[in-house]
């Protein structure tokens, strides 16, 4: 069983479109995250949810909106896609608290043309 899954794995779309990436974890964790990894492999946290409540909201354009329908899911919706949004987006989960391991999904490679 995949612990943290993301769909789709690849996403190619045109500028101005709206797209969503879905994330699900079956680990029973209470905290989920979205990260953006750029072409230089730099990882930047975007959002974090704990029990469906937003706890980290870094400086991210408001075109990005996370949605957590339940503890096991954290989806990322992106409006009006721009070329600079091209990146690999990783979802992760952890069992809250301090000093706990994060489990990462396989990533979604988004290419905006």
């Amino acid at each position, binding site marked *: 069983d995949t612990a*943290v899954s993301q769909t789709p794995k690849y996403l190619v779309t045109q500028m101005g479109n709206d797209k969503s990436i879905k994330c699900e974890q079956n680990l029973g964790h209470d*905290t989920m*995250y979205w990260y953006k990894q750029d072409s*230089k*492999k*730099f*990882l*930047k*946290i975007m959002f*974090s949810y*704990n029990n469906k409540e937003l*706890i*980290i909201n870094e400086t991210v354009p408001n075109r990005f909106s996370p949605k957590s329908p339940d503890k096991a899911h954290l989806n990322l919706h992106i409006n009006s896609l721009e070329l600079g949004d091209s990146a690999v987006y*990783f979802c*992760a989960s952890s069992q809250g608290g*301090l*000093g*706990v*391991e*994060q489990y*990462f*999904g*396989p*990533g979604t490679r988004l290419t905006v043309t």
Partner: protein
Amino acid sequence: AQSVTQPDIHITVSEGASLELRCNYSYGATPYLFWYVQSPGQGLQLLLKYFSGDTLVQGIKGFEAEFKRSQSSFNLRKPSVHWSDAAEYFCVANTGNQFYFGTGTSLTVIP
């Protein structure tokens, strides 16, 4: 501000040689420290973590890391590198709800 520094962007070693990847953190207290590995096209996988106690921690795949408070370092080591170790390595510090990632070190292994 808290930060994690990985001074080496890219390292090349020969298969069978020893490896050390450097990591320094900047934080008032000792954070929780992790090393993750990202194989090409994959997500991140935990190699090892340090919370407290013994400053030499063992991880998976033959990796170990040593925490040195005086140097604010948490360097990753492996005595003999295998070709399959070629990947991107990230050092991470955790305080509260925040995770601070280093910029990563890309490891190339040559036969």
